[in-house]
């Protein structure tokens, strides 16, 4: 029997899935891989730890589920989080840790671009928002602020490029990951000269560009032996987690959008055309030639409810956040829709789409004497999802969205899914216990192998059985409160700036934590 393996390199875990050729899951394993915050603005991962974790997870899955049942692994397809940057020397060895999407050290470079014509042109060419998350600004930061490392750097890789290079020796970057660097012209699929100049690099300092279906050479002999895989196992470079998440939900045509809510979140649409937004609020990433995944990301997804639970949950059992969260959600479900007018702005981590304001902060608004503890619980969840809705609403200025699908651990909590359906006033589909990113990678691999003629045909294969129908009366309540939410998000911009500045000035805990790590 034949099988397909998918490997997802995420910012907090490596996930490996094994599928049969029908797309049924044979087995899956996930192991944690940490992100380090050595300074308040920094967010890094150890590339060797990711590599070792990946080998460990892959080997265990193969030994537990694949080899004993005599499955033959036909191919391995990768996906990874976007925007990572890893500097390597002339021998291909890392110069320090990889920098993740959540790293804000390049804030100055991003601001500089944002306010310039050059920035506008680069955004239009590359589709990547001008934000410290983008490798364009990060590499520029290296050039300006870590000159020694910049001098020693032979290439700037993505995490996935590095991991694949360790396995096969090939140094590649796929269209999707490349289109999230801010350096790739998404219309011509060539590196963009203006962006390279701003970053201070040349094309030979980047991996070779390939389509997501490309094969990345053969596994090195030692890995063939230690993993028990044959030399003809195809290694497919694959795409980004974001592109895979929408493909994995079977969205390939217009009229549908996919919502992903894990710690952070995004609303995405797919289509043959780039979204041209005057206010530059969206990303436009490439899945394949002439196929764009567009949308907006939020920083404040499930991570905000995690925060709330840690502060106000019961924790009858030490460290049992799942139990505490369930209890809170049960409490929230007893509070009327709209939390009797208590609103929550979820911007605990600043915000990206649609307001793109790093200074934005959280807030409870509309509090009156009748509000109780449980109102806060529900308002918190509603606030997180109003933010998702606000991204969706701005997307609707450009695209007609008739139905939604949802994935990610926070978004697929039934209470949240229903709330999304009500806020959007659209049906939402999903499959429980389904991992959209991995399934997207399966579809890419299966298409490459010829099982499907095209990704369009592959996408038809996806069936999401569960449906949440919108409830009209709930929608009108949410719609009313949302208009206030929206006005607050934009209208408070001066106050956000003032409070952020004061917080920065007086911040003791941030400095203390950073100092502890440095010891």
């Amino acid at each position, binding site marked *: 029997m034949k099988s397909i393996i998918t490997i997802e390199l995420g910012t907090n875990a490596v996930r490996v899935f094994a599928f049969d050729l029908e797309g049924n899951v044979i087995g899956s394993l996930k*192991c*944690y891989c940490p992100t380090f915050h050595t300074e308040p603005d920094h967010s890094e991962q150890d590339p*060797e*730890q990711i590599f070792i974790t990946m*080998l460990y997870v892959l080997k265990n899955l193969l030994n537990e589920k694949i080899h004993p049942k005599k499955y033959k692994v036909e191919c391995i397809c990768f996906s990874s989080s976007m925007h990572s940057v890893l500097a390597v020397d002339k*021998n291909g*060895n890392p110069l320090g840790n990889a920098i993740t999407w959540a790293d804000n050290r390049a804030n100055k470079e991003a601001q500089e671009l944002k306010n310039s014509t050059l920035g506008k042109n680069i955004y239009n060419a590359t589709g990547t928002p001008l934000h410290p998350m983008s490798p364009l600004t990060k590499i520029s930061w290296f050039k300006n602020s870590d000159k020694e490392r910049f001098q020693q750097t032979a290439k700037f890789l993505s995490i996935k490029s590095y991991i694949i290079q360790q396995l096969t020796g090939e140094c590649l970057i796929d269209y999707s990951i490349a289109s999230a660097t801010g350096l790739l012209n998404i219309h011509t699929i060539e590196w963009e000269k203006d962006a390279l100049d701003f970053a201070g690099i040349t094309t030979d300092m980047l991996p070779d560009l390939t389509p997501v279906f490309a094969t990345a050479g053969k596994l090195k002999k030692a890995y063939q032996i230690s993993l028990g895989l044959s030399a003809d196992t195809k290694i497919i470079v694959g795409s980004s987690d974001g592109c895979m998440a929408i493909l994995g939900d079977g969205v390939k045509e217009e009229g549908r959008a996919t919502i992903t809510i894990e710690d952070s979140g995004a609303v995405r649409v797919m289509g043959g055309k780039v979204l041209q937004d005057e206010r530059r609020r969206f990303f436009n990433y490439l899945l394949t030639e002439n196929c764009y995944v567009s949308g907006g990301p939020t920083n404040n997804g499930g991570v905000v409810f995690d925060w709330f639970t840690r502060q106000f949950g019961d924790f009858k059992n030490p*460290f049992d*956040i799942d139990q505490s969260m369930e209890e809170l959600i049960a409490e929230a479900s007893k509070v009327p829709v709209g939390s009797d007018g208590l609103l929550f702005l979820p911007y605990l981590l600043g915000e990206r789409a649609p307001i793109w304001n790093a200074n934005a902060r959280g807030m409870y608004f509309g509090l009156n004497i009748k509000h109780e503890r449980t109102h806060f619980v529900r308002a918190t969840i509603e606030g997180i999802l109003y933010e998702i809705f606000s991204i969706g609403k701005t997307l609707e200025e450009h695209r007609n969205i008739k139905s939604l699908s949802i994935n990610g651990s926070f978004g697929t909590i039934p209470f949240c899914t229903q709330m999304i359906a009500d806020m959007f006033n659209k049906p939402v589909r999903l499959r429980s216990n389904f991992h959209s990113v991995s399934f997207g990678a399966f579809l890419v691999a299966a298409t490459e192998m010829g099982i499907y003629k095209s990704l369009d045909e592959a996408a038809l294969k996806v069936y999401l059985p569960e449906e949440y129908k919108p409830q009209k009366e709930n929608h009108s309540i949410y719609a009313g409160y949302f208009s206030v939410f929206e006005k607050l998000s934009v209208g408070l911009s001066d106050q956000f700036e003032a409070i952020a500045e004061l917080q920065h000035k007086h911040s003791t805990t941030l400095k203390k934590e950073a100092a502890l790590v440095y010891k």
Partner: protein
Amino acid sequence: MNQFVLQQGNSKELRPFPHILELGLRKNISIQLDSFRVSSAGGIRIYNVMEGKFEWCINHQHHVLYPGDVALILPDQAFGGENGVLGIGSFAWLHLSIQKLESGEIVTGKWSNLSENESLAIGKILQLNASPVLLKFNEAGRILKSIQTELFSQEIGYHASVNHLIDELFIQITRHLTRQSNPGRDFPKTFMNLEQTLRRNLSHQWTVEEMAALVGLGTTLFNEKVKSYSGFSPINYLINIRISEAIKLLKRPGISLTDIALDTGFYSSQHFSTTFKKLTGYTPSEFRKNHLNEK
């Protein structure tokens, strides 16, 4: 309760207990200037505030202690009142000599009934601890009081009982410390702290008991939590960090394989080689060769 001080060498009560350097209780009814100067001493000092409020300087940091709080002063750390001042209130203290191993680790002495492993683990946790003040730790006061009663009344079995109580004090301090720094709400953060501690002390031969104690959990629950959160068993997670660090060192010329093995916590280069090959498919020397001559 009256004031008293027992001192090794001066008080016959302490003769059977050479490890107890001093035990005392003090009531201070007016502010005393220049009477409680900052000084360092060998051994461990444990101060339990019973009444009032004291501003003390521990290891060059200012702390305010209230009733129920305990100050823990490690060997050679400076301790005393701010500017030598002693505030109003009462407190009890115990000063113990402690064994310091060549490796710098501290362990309880021969008098203790703690197993070697537990003693090492407790010493490690006390040394790693960043905050010397245990808040609202009334247990310490109770134990100190019992030690005093045993020493003064000298009933049958008191010798064993005193040493037992000191062991108990160390156990409770350790548990309180780990719970205080890990309030049982944020496992990701707790796990990250553990990871950083492991990375800073990678050459140490960590046991699961030590790791669990650092997090403030029993080993069974610790194993379960780590496994469900990370997908690794605690030992496999540790090996994972060790190999990741070893890979980095292998990619740098000039460090011998034996040094890499020991620096990253393997007990021999053979052990390193076998573990490395099992996970990566390469022996460390093959791996190094490939990566130093790639281009």
